């Protein structure tokens, strides 16, 4: 450096002075100037305290542990800010799980109910078949009341009932042969005393009534009952063979 060093030259060469790229003579001249100029000396100190370490050196020296975890730390800090973008996603996921669980449970229940329904249908069919068998006229004679017939079983069932409707009584009268005893006196008394025996109910039973005492001296009620019957002579109570006593006894 040959030019005289003044403040302008010093400021222009300050970077080279600090980084050591000046030749010895130039360095000597600049230091000599700074020794006599407080402003230039102050600038030199400011530059020197900021010069080292260089940015390039610091990039090499930066601890890897502090650098490598930077993304995770940033994401952890901004995590609350990310949630509002799609707040419904976790709710939708939870609702989906609940829906799937409920659907699976309902599916199992439906299967169980379907199995039960099938069993009940089979059982119902069997019961219907039994009822149909009981209701079917026995082979050979209509209304046969032989012990082996379904009609017999039907009559037996009806005979065991505590109460009997007029419809059922009509059915009995229709099944039992005309020359058979239908009702004992006790049974008739019960029927007449019970609430099921309503004057004016069913009409004349099919096939007529047989046996049993009849009222005498009294007109039949208008509109029904057992219907008008001609007075008959009193017949003793007797037990006809094969005809069940409709008082609940077994044949």
């Amino acid at each position, binding site marked *: 450096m040959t030019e005289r060093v003044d403040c302008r030259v010093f400021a222009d060469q300050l970077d080279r002075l600090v980084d050591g790229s000046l030749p010895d003579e130039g360095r000597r001249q600049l230091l000599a100037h700074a020794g006599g100029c407080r402003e230039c000396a102050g600038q030199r100190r*400011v530059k020197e305290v900021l010069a080292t370490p260089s*940015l390039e050196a610091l990039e090499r020296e930066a601890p890897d542990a502090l650098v490598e975890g*930077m993304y995770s730390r940033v994401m952890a800090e901004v995590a609350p800010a990310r949630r509002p973008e799609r707040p419904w996603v976790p709710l939708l996921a939870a609702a989906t799980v609940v829906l799937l669980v409920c659907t699976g449970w309902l599916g199992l229940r439906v299967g169980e109910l379907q199995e039960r329904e099938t069993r009940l249908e089979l059982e119902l069919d069997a019961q219907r078949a039994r009822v149909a068998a009981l209701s079917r006229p026995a082979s050979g004679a209509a209304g046969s009341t032989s012990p082996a017939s379904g009609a017999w079983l039907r009559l037996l069932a009806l005979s065991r009932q505590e109460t009997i409707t007029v419809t059922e009584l009509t059915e009995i009268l229709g099944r039992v042969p005309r020359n058979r005893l239908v009702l004992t006196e006790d049974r008739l008394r019960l029927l007449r005393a019970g609430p099921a025996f309503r004057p004016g109910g069913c009409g004349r039973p099919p096939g007529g009534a047989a046996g049993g005492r009849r009222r005498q001296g009294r007109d039949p009620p208008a509109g029904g009952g057992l219907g008008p019957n001609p007075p008959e002579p009193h017949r003793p109570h007797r037990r006809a063979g094969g005809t069940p006593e409709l008082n609940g006894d077994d044949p």
Partner: protein
Amino acid sequence: MVEQAPEILAARARESDEAAFRALMEGPTRTLMATAFRYTGDWEWARDLTQDTWVRVYRKLDRWDPKRSFTVWLYALHRNRCLDHLRRSWVRLEEPAEPDRVERLPAGESDDPLARLERREFRRRVLAAAGELSPSQREVFLRVDAEDRDQREVAEALGIRYGTLRVTQHAARKRVAELLRPEEGMA
């Protein structure tokens, strides 16, 4: 894997592409930490300030103008963050230090822990004094002297001529020295 320009990654990150944001962080993080160290002289602070800068980038990415350089915008955010940190510590810096100890600061690095501590403290005072500069002087002083960036790159980033940058740099250094004028001359 082809490196993509920061502007492309930033544009994708704006669309909630987290992979793009992660790639965006990989390049500048080490430099940001080194820059923050030049402001603070401490790696822990440098890490915290760098992390804070990236958090701000994540939250304010929609404010970045895609027509402008992402790197310039990033370093501006980081510089402001570092200066905020320095301002909060200026109260401590304003406390009167022992003049003798300050004036006898060595020019270069020292093995003496006390000397290193004093140097670090003087460095913080210098950077804090940069807050008293005019905006143009502060931008030049911080980018060139505080962050040790290439002068011609800074001139281009600021949109000024190299000669203008040099003149502004000289004025900034002179002003900072006046604010920290030692009672004695250079040691």
